[in-house]
């Protein structure tokens, strides 16, 4: 069962993957500098989010993602491509 993609649901799932509290994460939280996710870790996080929301972000867009908010926005743009 896929979840509906909302900012709160996305934040909670990112926190779950990182073993953090949701309150520690905001839209401006930096994936590399603050969460210490390496470049491949972004894809691992992405896989975790795909499983939760069924939304894939094309590889070509991943390089422009720096914050958790960027990640949510990219997923939000592509949610329309997902079958209901």
């Amino acid at each position, binding site marked *: 069962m896929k979840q509906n993609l909302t900012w709160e649901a996305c934040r909670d799932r990112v926190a779950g993957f990182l*073993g*953090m509290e949701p309150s520690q994460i905001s839209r401006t939280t930096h994936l590399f500098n603050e969460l210490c996710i390496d470049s491949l870790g972004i894809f691992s996080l992405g896989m*975790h989010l*795909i499983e939760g929301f069924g939304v*894939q972000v094309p590889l070509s867009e991943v390089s422009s993602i720096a914050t958790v908010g960027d990640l949510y926005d990219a997923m939000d743009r592509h949610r329309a491509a997902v079958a209901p």
Partner: protein
Amino acid sequence: MTPLPQTLDQHYDAALRKLKPHHTILMDEGNPISFQEFQLSVRRQVAALKLAGVIPGQMVGYSVPNGLAAFTLPLAISRIGAACLPMYVLVPDEFRCAAFAQARATFVVVPGESADNFRQIAAAKGMTFSVLTSEELLQADPEELPPAISVPDQPFLFATSSGTTGQPKPVFMTQRNVASALSAAYDLSSYGPWRTDSDYRAMIAFPQSTSGIMILLGTAFLGVCQVFTRSLSPARFLEIAHAVDAEAFSAPPAWLEALLSIPVNATNRVPSLRGVAAGMDFVSPSLLQRLGVRFPAMDSVANGYGLVETATVFMIWKGDGKESFAGPTGRLTLCEGLGNEIRVVTETGEDVAIGEEGELWTKGPSVITSYLGNTQGFQDGWFRTGDYVVRESDTTVELRGRRKYLIKRGGKSVSPLVVQEAVDRSPGILRSAVVGIPHALYGEMVWAFAVAQPGAEPSTASVMKSVRAELPSHMVPDRVEFVETIPLGKGVGKVDREALIAQGKALLEKLGVQG
């Protein structure tokens, strides 16, 4: 200092000088076997083999159930100056016949009930070995033990190694290799709870495996009473251990894990257990800590490290006190007095500095000098183990795992053992296994497969929180997959990595993220 024995015969002769005839050397299903009975079995088998025509240099294959005959047969074969190929009774007859023929066995010893089938297979396939029965060997009139004629460099024990390439390779251990392995038992028996008298009873699983034979004979010749069961049931193992007040277990980690799955009752508590000698695989802190809870008096552990090419154990980790069970359990030190040497080297063959990683190389009395007709894996007299370690001193290393199992994630090597230890320490985790899942983008992803403790509900979040506090980001699992059980392979039950990798690939495909 007395020189260590250089042949199996020298070990046996030392035992003949040391042990009294009434000494209980073995217990079969809880029934004591005296050293006098043991000696008689050797002498009967020597007489029967000579009568059958076995001569020095010939190969004798054997495959008999756990029991006195199985444990004295290698001594009888050695006394004649012949060589041996032991095989498990559970292997299909056709396969055993083929293995005996491939090893050019002249004689094969099997139980009477199997003899006719072996003869028929041999006749049908044009195999030339003669079949003897284990019963007829024990019915022969015993003769005086002949003087030892085997020499240290003489090939003695035929075995097969998967080596560093995964391809089975035939190995011929010399008398010196085998003697060295028995001597490793000296190191094992010289600390913790181990005592060398027959009131000290050690329960051994898989006594007929190559390493089992070495441990059983090595410690038994020192005076430890080795207890075994003919059954392959963990429940039976515990019942016998309880009945004889066993103070130690010798078993691979998968067997110890199986023991923990048996519900505790009044006839299998084994309150006497004080020590565990493991081997054949990595022993995790999680397993040791659970054993320490299951057996409250257990306060010491030894994990032997070695390969078929090193005649089994040549390095050892010793943990003294329950606090040692937390690890690191992969800290290995050369067994004392054996004369083996180690190096830790880069891929270009240069020695690494203290604290750096490299491949473990070794040479010495325990180590074979080549495979049969194949020197791959050997360099300038050194055997390349294929295991990655951190060099701590000239005699001590920290095991990182098989080179072929190291996970190559984005150009960095990740030790699955280090990740596994961290995952095992996470709240609510019973045990785990960590493997590399092939992926075009990563090379390999780090996946942890974890089993939850009964009643606990660990999550990806709880494991990640714990693991991130311990490991650098490139070693943090890319995924934590919760499973009911960790699949185990055949044999001594090592983790079935291929099954886990297949599971990971299937999930990547399902998610549409194969890379």
